[in-house]
């Protein structure tokens, strides 16, 4: 449950770029969140509605793009998604794996009105 501090960071970054772009209003916030970044969309939205009041970002719509956590087997090169619990390679059963992606956690873009 660290969504509050995370949402504050989102607001800070969005406001900074909005001012730099001489925006009158921010309409959309596009976030990219990997499966391994344990962040709950509803919780971010809840805090967002509260903390964005009276800022340039008030009423901006939050968009979440979820990226799966992709693992690769180092024995047979099979790529598979991490769903709930960590699993060995579904193809050959090997435990020699590497995490390819799923750590993403960034603000991709904002929609503004000038």
């Amino acid at each position, binding site marked *: *449950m*660290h969504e509050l501090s995370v949402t504050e*960071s989102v607001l800070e*970054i969005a406001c900074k770029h909005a001012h730099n772009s001489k925006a009158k209003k921010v309409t959309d916030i596009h976030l990219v969140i990997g499966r391994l970044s344990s962040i709950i969309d509803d919780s971010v939205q809840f805090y967002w509605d509260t903390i964005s009041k009276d800022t340039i970002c008030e009423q901006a719509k939050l968009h979440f793009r979820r990226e799966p956590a992709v693992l690769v087997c180092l024995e047979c090169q099979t790529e598979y998604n991490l769903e709930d619990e*960590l699993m060995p390679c579904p193809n050959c059963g090997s435990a020699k794996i590497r*995490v390819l992606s799923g750590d993403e956690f960034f603000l991709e873009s904002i929609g503004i009105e*000038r």
Partner: protein
Amino acid sequence: MSEKRIKIVENILNANDQIALKNRQRINEAGVYSINLMASPGAGKTSFILATIKSLLNENIQIGVIEGDTAPVTIDSDKISAAGMPAVQVNTGGQCHLDSVMIENALDQLPLDDLDLLVVENVGNLICPAAFKLGTHSNVLIASVPEGDDKPYKYPNIYRGLDVLIINKVDLLPYLDFDMDYFRKGVEMLNPGLQTFAVSCKTNQGIEDWLTWLRLRISKK
């Protein structure tokens, strides 16, 4: 009025990471080695710190401790102070993890130049502390065997970022259905070759091996 989409691509935790970098620099300049100690509640973080302090006290190694807690309780820091080392209690006000700003403030309250080792005891939690860099040199996790052998499978992220794993309370193994091979297989999947010490703070088993690892890091600072 015109509408426009502006590309940003900025890491959301960037501000935290920047302050963590500053903390690291400050700790380095003071010639201190620092660890971020993480675990679930009750894994034995404070007992482990006390066992470490007790052994190093006679070796003229000065240790400072930053204690993170979600509520204003000083039980942990009182124990550390009673052992003769400076401790700062950080109350996170309910927040689930320490962040780099809290460490920045806590560093102001410690005699950093007089220290050899700084131990940060993070909030008891296996999820959130993994996401927030503090500026410490190494991430250490204590997994205690009563928690069960499935934790690497359920909390993969914290295991991925570790430099050292401490398996605590191994004196209880005869009484538990803890499958050490299954546990270690999960750890190996996430963090191949991870430096691991099996210890008991109760019997002192394995503590000396951990101290040997730690002394080497401290002496290089």
